[in-house]
């Protein structure tokens, strides 16, 4: 079956999640759909799988226009989507869960379920215990169950959203094996949505890259990883010369640090950042940079290794204690993690003060807010709500709320979504901070920014931090390899 997406557009307010995408998928091939977070991959796949309709555009099967009322309708017409978190019910038994999406009769046919599931598991070498409940299964096994359900349900096209995150190496081999089998032997179409360039190189026949809602390139695989990186991130100019800056004493030292989470574990990080240094973390979203930053702020706790702040072990300290130890943190989600939508600028300024009196001194607060607004060039009034500000002004407000004389500032995507002027202004502020001896660690998916602003760079891939690179001595090529997970 040939699937054609024609001029797909989907807007969310001012955000153009999909902006006129044209794509064709042929039967018997495996496609890799690449792009950074927010590039529009999920939106596009949700449209293709019947989860949401496009604003504009058509989906054609062998030239016939199709409309889906729901994901179930899409599956009936042959499109199945495997979500990153399988849609199953933890307390149910494997067979119940399987039948939940399969059987429409009143009486559940367990014999049929067993037969079908056994056939599937033997065909694809799945290791699935049919007599247990979902919460006893690993993520990989749940995925296999879901896959079986979609295939028996008649899926001709399978969309897999980041399927290898959180599953074991063996399960990954089984998954890839079954994907190849489905494409080569059964002529099915497979679409792999992924961040991991290595996997795309290993498995796919073609790669398609989205950037800001548009298709920016198609490549046949094998190809050079750097070409993929370039398509995803855009052209990166070589770094311009910059005067050296005298660093001070080490502010932050990480020794054999390990930060575990359910999905991803950051391992064996050794790093020392000095006063006045700007350290950039590159890598695809979800590779561990954010986890590392959060560990340094006390939002995540390491289970091994040390975090030293000016020589003092702060490994188990909670976030508020780190705040008092003069560590500042600016997260990526401005209105989710940093600002409170219904609160005014004034109220934010009051909340962020390190010391408070019982009653709020309105007059003093008004003066202070006015001066912050002026100093940080925020377009807004003291009584404007944070959510009335533009993204750039929200970012300025976040910087206005950072305390003074910080030892360390940790930043996630400090200039994401900002225009050039605002970005430059943000960095000017950060440079002023470094003059005071503040160490700065930031992560960014903008390679330009990483190259231009950092003194040193490290790249994350799958929870592993690369060797540390001097910005002056590295190249886009090298970073590209590291981002793709090739050392």
């Amino acid at each position: 079956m040939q699937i054609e997406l024609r001029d797909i557009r989907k807007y969310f307010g001012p955000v153009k999640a999909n902006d006129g995408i044209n794509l064709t998928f042929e039967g018997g091939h495996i496609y890799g759909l690449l792009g950074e977070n927010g590039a529009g991959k999920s939106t596009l796949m949700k449209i293709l799988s019947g989860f949401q309709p496009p604003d504009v555009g058509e989906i054609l099967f062998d030239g016939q226009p199709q409309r889906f009322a729901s994901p179930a309708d899409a599956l009936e017409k042959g499109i199945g989507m495997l979500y990153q978190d399988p849609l199953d019910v933890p307390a149910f038994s494997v067979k119940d869960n399987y039948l939940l999406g399969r059987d429409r009769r009143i009486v559940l046919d367990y014999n049929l379920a067993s037969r079908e599931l056994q056939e599937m598991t033997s065909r694809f070498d799945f290791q699935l215990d049919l007599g247990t409940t979902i919460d006893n299964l690993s993520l990989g096994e749940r995925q296999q169950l879901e896959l079986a359900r979609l295939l028996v349900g008649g899926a001709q096209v399978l969309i897999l959203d980041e399927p290898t995150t959180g599953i074991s190496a063996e399960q990954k081999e089984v998954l890839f094996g079954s994907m190849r089998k489905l494409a080569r032997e059964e002529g099915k179409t497979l679409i792999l949505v992924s961040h991991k360039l290595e996997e795309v190189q290993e498995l796919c026949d073609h790669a398609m890259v989205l950037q800001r809602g548009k298709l920016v390139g198609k490549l046949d695989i094998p190809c050079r990883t750097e070409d993929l990186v370039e398509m995803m991130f855009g052209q990166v100019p070589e770094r311009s010369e910059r005067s050296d800056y005298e660093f001070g004493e080490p502010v932050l030292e990480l020794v054999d640090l390990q930060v575990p989470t359910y999905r991803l574990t950051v391992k064996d990080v050794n790093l020392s950042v000095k006063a006045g240094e700007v350290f950039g973390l590159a890598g695809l979203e979800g590779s561990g940079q954010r986890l590392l930053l959060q560990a340094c702020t006390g939002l995540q706790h390491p289970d091994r290794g040390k975090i030293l702040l000016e020589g003092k072990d702060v490994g188990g300290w909670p976030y508020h204690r780190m705040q008092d130890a003069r560590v500042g943190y600016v997260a990526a989600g401005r209105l989710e993690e940093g600002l409170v939508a219904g609160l005014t600028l004034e109220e934010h300024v009051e909340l962020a003060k390190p010391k408070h009196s019982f009653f709020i001194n309105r007059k003093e607060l008004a003066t202070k807010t006015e001066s912050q607004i002026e100093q940080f060039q925020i377009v807004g009034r003291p009584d404007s709500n944070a959510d009335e500000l533009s993204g750039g002004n929200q970012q300025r407000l976040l910087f206005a709320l950072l305390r003074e004389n910080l030892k360390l500032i940790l930043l996630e995507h400090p200039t994401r979504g900002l225009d050039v002027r605002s970005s430059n202004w943000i960095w000017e502020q950060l440079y002023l901070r470094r003059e005071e001896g503040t160490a700065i660690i930031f992560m960014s998916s903008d390679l330009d920014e990483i190259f231009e602003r950092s003194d040193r760079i490290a790249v994350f891939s799958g929870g592993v931090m690369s060797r540390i690179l001097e910005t002056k001595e590295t190249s886009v090529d090298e970073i590209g390899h590291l981002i793709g997970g090739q050392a």
Partner: protein
Amino acid sequence: MNTSRWLRWVWPAVPIAGALVVTSLLLVLFGAAPLEAFQAMYDGAFGDQSKTLSVLAFWVPLLLASTGLLVTFRAGLWNIGIEGQIVMGAVAASWIALSVEAPSAILIALEIVVAMLAGALWAALSAVLKTRGNVHEIFSGLALNGIAIILTNYLISGPWQPPEGGSFRGTQPFQPGAILPLFENSRFSPLSLLLAVIAFILVVVALRGTFWGLKLKAIGQNLRSAFLLGVSSEREMILAMMFCGALAGLGGAVRTLSWFDSLRQSISGGIGFMALMVVMLANYNAFLVPFIAFFFSMVLRGSLTLQLRTQLHSSLGGILTELMVLFVLLFGDWKKLALFRNKGDDG
């Protein structure tokens, strides 16, 4: 901006009007004249002095509970357990009234303090279950409501039953010194009104003028951001719940020490749930709360006369108020109406 401020104040009239219309239709359906019925209700509330005083007496504990809920709602908490907190306040006040002998002033002060403490602790249970046990306050609140009512039943039929035998209706009347000073022959205690007014002013000041109020607002709007800005959410949540519980407990004391003269089986009479409706109807605007609470007690007291005069059941008052709440939930946040259609998720 001006239109929206104007709307914000006038908005509560919309669900009230809607509920009046639907209630009128119901009345017509049952063959009664709506105007006559509403007239009967009005007479029942303000027909003579004793009726008016009874509206006032009903109003005070409702106002106390609603005032407390302003605090928990500000912190984004659904304190459904307020009903149980009222009951526990009443139980604690009864305990002092039945077991302590002291001059009236001291006895009453003690009753009030212990009642507030009991309400606060009962609320703290819900709060700690939420912050430490990850149990939503709605569920723990419902459970604790049930437990409080069962405890009351046990006390009136067991340890505190009147000497003539347990009737399951209530304890024996308290010693006269334990009852709040009442206005003439009514069940209205001016002291309770004074306390309610003080509580209301305290809450308004706390929510508008103090740093604590600001922290609650931040927590209520966005827990994560508030935490990142330096607010310890656990402590503030527990404090907010305890504050509300204390006022609810005071309300319970007022119920048992002035409305009744003993601990009764349904000591709260659903005042806690009613208070939730009051605050929702007020759209969380503190200054509307006293008026809406007053309106509620007027309707509920008035519907007693309605029954006597027109043979319509007095639950009509309840239907009217609850319809209002339905209308509020339907049209509640006028700001959301505009946003209703262009909601979407991110790509």
